[in-house]
């Protein structure tokens, strides 16, 4: 029976799949078209909102002279290094806190207080503490991605089914076996959800640091472009940041899809 249904269902199913894949592109094209209409009719002054063509021209120029790549590479470096450090600390401390509630009592006031302060408030201090190079921006990024990773790691580890933990204990599983075969797989969905949040925050962390002081980086490019009244280049920089955030998010989503394949199989 199944084989009889397949030929009839496939075209519709594929059609829907393609439609879903193209839907975001359609939204983007619609926004660009709307933007072009607004610009053409001069509903908003081009000083405030330049036309898509002007932005495209600024993009081509920034790519041709290499400035966009140079600034984007700096931001990407700060993002990735900061993300690795922040996520590394968040995972480690999150696991330790999940296993030691007393530690949570000791550290939570500090962690919550630090996290609830907007990063722009202490970004200038990081320049003084870590200098004007990339270190301060990496630290800013690490701080901003740390908290979601930490919270989700704690939630993931603590959300473990107690009966499964009892089972591993009764089987006399070692600590490593319990971690590798039970805790990590069970906590991964929550941890990866936190990592998706962290990946988008990484861009904010790097750029906030660059806004305070930087020679290179997309934040520095925005400041420079703004000071020269080059609004199209400001938009190019902002779109590049968005692209980075989307790319990182998609990468984590892909990893999640691959790593959690067993979960989909087990639920179908």
């Amino acid at each position, binding site marked *: 029976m199944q084989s009889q249904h397949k030929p009839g269902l496939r075209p519709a199913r594929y059609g829907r799949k393609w439609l879903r894949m193209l839907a975001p592109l359609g939204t983007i094209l619609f926004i660009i078209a709307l933007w072009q209409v607004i610009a053409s009719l001069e509903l908003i*002054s081009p*000083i405030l909102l330049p036309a898509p063509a002007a932005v495209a021209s600024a993009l081509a120029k920034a790519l041709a002279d290499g400035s966009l790549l140079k600034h984007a590479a700096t931001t990407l470096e700060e993002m990735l290094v900061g993300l690795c450090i922040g996520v590394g600390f968040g995972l480690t401390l999150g696991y330790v806190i999940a296993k030691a509630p007393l530690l949570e009592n000791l550290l939570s006031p500090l962690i919550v207080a630090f996290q609830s302060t907007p990063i722009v408030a202490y970004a200038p201090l990081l*320049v003084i503490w870590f200098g*004007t190079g990339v270190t301060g921006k990496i630290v800013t990024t690490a701080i901003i991605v740390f908290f979601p990773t930490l919270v989700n790691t704690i939630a993931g580890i603590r959300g473990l089914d107690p009966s499964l933990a009892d089972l591993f204990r009764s089987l006399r599983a070692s600590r490593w076996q319990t971690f590798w075969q039970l805790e990590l797989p069970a906590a991964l969905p929550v941890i990866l959800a936190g990592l998706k949040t962290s990946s988008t925050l990484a861009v904010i962390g790097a750029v906030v640091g660059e806004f305070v*002081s*930087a020679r290179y980086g997309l934040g*520095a490019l925005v400041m420079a472009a*703004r*000071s020269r*009244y080059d609004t199209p280049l400001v938009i190019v920089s902002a779109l590049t940041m968005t692209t980075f955030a989307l790319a990182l998010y998609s990468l984590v989503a892909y990893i999640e899809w691959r790593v959690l394949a067993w979960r989909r199989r087990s639920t179908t």
Partner: protein
Amino acid sequence: MFKLLAIVIIGLLLVSSGVVAQDQPLDEQILLTFVPNVQFAPFYVGIEAGYFAEAGFAVSLDHLQEPEVLDLVAVGQANYGVVSGEQVILARSQNRDVVYVFEWFQQYPVGLVYDRALDLSDLGDLRDKTIGIPGRFGASYSGLTALLHDANLTETDIEVSEIGFNAPEVFCLGLVDAAVVYINNEPLQIQQLADAGDCGAVQAVATTSVASQVDLVSNGLIISRALLDDDPAAVQRMVGAYAKALRATIDNPAAAYLASLAHVESLPREQSFLDMLEAAAEAQSDFLSELPSRAEVADSRAELASQLQSRFGSGSLAQFTILLNTIELWDADQLGSSDLASWQAMHATLQRMGFLGEAPVELSDAFSNQFVVAAE
């Protein structure tokens, strides 16, 4: 008959509403940069002493970044803004039709601060030194470029470090040899840190101002070309009111400080200090009624500073001292007037920085002294 009566009544109503409208002050927003600060005292004096109200304006103040100030004025979302001169040239090169109508700072407020022991008074000695600037934009970068050019140096001869707006801390940590700062403000902060022993080995700081080397057009009042064409009378009244407020601030800084209290929350307001300022403001008013010369007024400011220093510590006095330092950058025989040479010098500086395209910027369109001359 009724028709005629109705027309007469409507006419009377329209006329009376016009009279009321004329009597009502016109709401005007002036866009400033930075944050509320005693350095904006002339605007506070304009409001508190009623100069703007006399000219028919109910003025409110807002603070934004310079590019935002300029763009909002350019598109007519605000009629008046205050930016530095180089912003006007840069913006005009990007099709923002704004006009600079009143030069507020007669001297460019930027300069180098350094350890006096290092002695960088000969700018050629900057070679191979690390110089801190907020970033490669704005008045500080323009000032540094002008200083380097004056010393026959280029950026490649020094190490430029982008330090954000953290010059006192970064300088005192020894991360830079010198920093580009607003000379009316930050050198004072650094000296206070040095006096407290919190500035490394630095005992005393020295400054070299850009204005001592080259005359660059500085901060001033801007309007849009459209406003200049549509309502020059209103611009004239605003410029006139601001000129009076600025002169009043220069002549009586104690009164200006007291007017600033309503606008700047962070100003020290120790009662004994305020009492002395009130007495000084009153005495200065009497002195001004004798029509003293500009030099005599300057002497009176120095005397007041000396009296205050003998009674109050730096914590109470810092902001008032910043006001006095800033007044030195504003004061001139004729306030508000800018000359073509200072615009040309700034234009050349921006070209050296590579900030201007190939299309020429017509500098004579960038500023106008017509309202200043008429206000005198």
